[in-house]
């Protein structure tokens, strides 16, 4: 099966502080990759490198076979102009820990903004699609609500619908339930499970080990900017091979 996401030797540092050192990751089409690890291990930075919200120091990231953020010529990487990067980002949906909905727009406006402005979808069509997506995340009746009128769980579900409205081939989730009250986590995970079952390729940075076990096709444990262990979620979570994975899991569980 074709890899939707392929990462090779990804390195990133801020000044002298190394954030990511030599990451390799493959995510086949239609599969769910969960990334776990202690805070500060570089998980979120890794996600931001996948859609070039962060630049990289070396290595390569391919999404659907296309090199992300750079053009390679004579073995050197040249950063692409903003136009090219923006075009590529349409193909990668992203969901943030803090939702980041646009507070001055209603749920519906949040969802149709990018399709209309970026993809030039005709407004009636964009609205129709937005309603279908709101239906899918169980919020069809809240389309006129502003973000501040929605609960955290509802905001995150709108944010997922907003990302899906661009018809991405890959969805990135950056700790999507970490900012939620415990009783609201379930509704967001349900939407994500439904999305995984529908065949969406997903990379999910999460602390929800139950979700990783149930939905994940693969799991990657990161520590100090490097991949420590990877494999089948059930195997890694119940019988980790590396000591650092064991330590982390014993602290989380």
């Amino acid at each position: 099966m074709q890899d939707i996401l392929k990462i090779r030797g990804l390195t990133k540092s801020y000044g002298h502080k190394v954030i990511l050192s030599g990451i390799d990751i493959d995510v086949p089409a239609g599969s769910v990759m969960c990334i776990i690890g202690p805070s500060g291990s570089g998980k979120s930075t890794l996600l931001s490198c996948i859609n070039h919200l962060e630049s990289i120091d070396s290595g390569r990231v391919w999404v659907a076979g296309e090199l992300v953020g750079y053009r390679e010529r004579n073995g050197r990487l040249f950063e692409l102009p903003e136009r090219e990067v923006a075009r590529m980002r349409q193909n990668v949906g992203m969901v943030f820990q803090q939702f980041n909905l646009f507070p001055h727009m209603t749920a519906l406006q949040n969802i149709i903004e990018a399709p209309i402005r970026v993809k030039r979808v005709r407004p009636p069509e964009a609205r129709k699609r937005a309603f279908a997506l709101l239906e899918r995340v169980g919020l069809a009746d809240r389309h006129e609500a502003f973000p501040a009128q929605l609960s955290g769980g509802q905001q995150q579900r709108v944010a997922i619908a907003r990302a899906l409205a661009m018809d991405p081939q890959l969805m990135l989730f950056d700790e999507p339930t970490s900012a939620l009250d415990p009783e609201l986590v379930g509704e967001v995970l349900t939407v994500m499970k439904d999305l995984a079952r529908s065949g969406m390729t997903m990379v999910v940075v999460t602390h929800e080990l139950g979700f990783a076990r149930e939905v994940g096709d693969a799991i990657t444990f990161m520590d100090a900017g490097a991949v420590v262990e990877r494999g089948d979620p059930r195997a890694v979570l119940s019988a980790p091979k590396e000591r650092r994975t064991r330590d982390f899991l014993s602290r989380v569980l």
Partner: protein
Amino acid sequence: MQTATARRSTEQVVPLRHPGTWLATAIVLLIVGLALYSVATNPAFQWGVVAQYMFNGQVLTGLRRTLELTLAAMVIGLVLGTVLALLRLSRNPLLSTVSWIYIWFFRSVPTLVQLIFWYNFGALYSKISLGIPFGPTLFSANTNVMITPLFAALAGLGLSQSAYTAEVIRAGILSVPLGQTRAASALGMRRMMIFRRIILPQAMKVVIPPVSNEVISMVKNTSLVSVIALAELLYTTQLIYSRTYQTIPLLIVASLWYLIIVSILSLGQHFLERKFRHR
């Protein structure tokens, strides 16, 4: 309903009394009353003359000029201020430094001095030419012809206003969380679009109250222009009282008009703020 009332009446709760507040209110009312009485009855205020000049054609022309100056100077201030704010936030250190120096300079020199300076610009450069540097001249004019009092007024008021507005707009832009830009970028939006569609509308909420204050200040700052003999509201009344020696009533005419304009603007500010307040 009745049972609730009955239950409530069984308990007697006596709120704390504030006799001091009542005393203060009485004193204030007395002072205000005395002041109003004196203003109304003192013949030196010459209310008849005030009424006579309130809608005088010359005064109304001056009023119109004041409104035009306010509008034009604010437009210059807002447009130039937005550009300066963006330069100031630029990653390029040269651009942000140039903007910083501009803001520093135009906020430091009093507007009154700037007005007089622009009015006398001819003393610095007697000719203004437009052309290719070190090449042919395309256009040339005598400075004293080019720089009319109106030009000097707009330059003086507009340029110093832009320095203040730039800081207000910069604060507005910085008040929008970085996550907004990240979310919009992740959707494939580009920088200009993100600024226009996502950042600016949110910055507006923060920017509107201080900018409304600036507009109100500008209405009154236009009176500085009277020093370069531009016939706005204040200078017009000055022209009249220098002829009739009815100084006080004419200054009251000007003050009343400033009061009216500012009141209307404050009302506008109230509605604008309500429009941009998101739920």
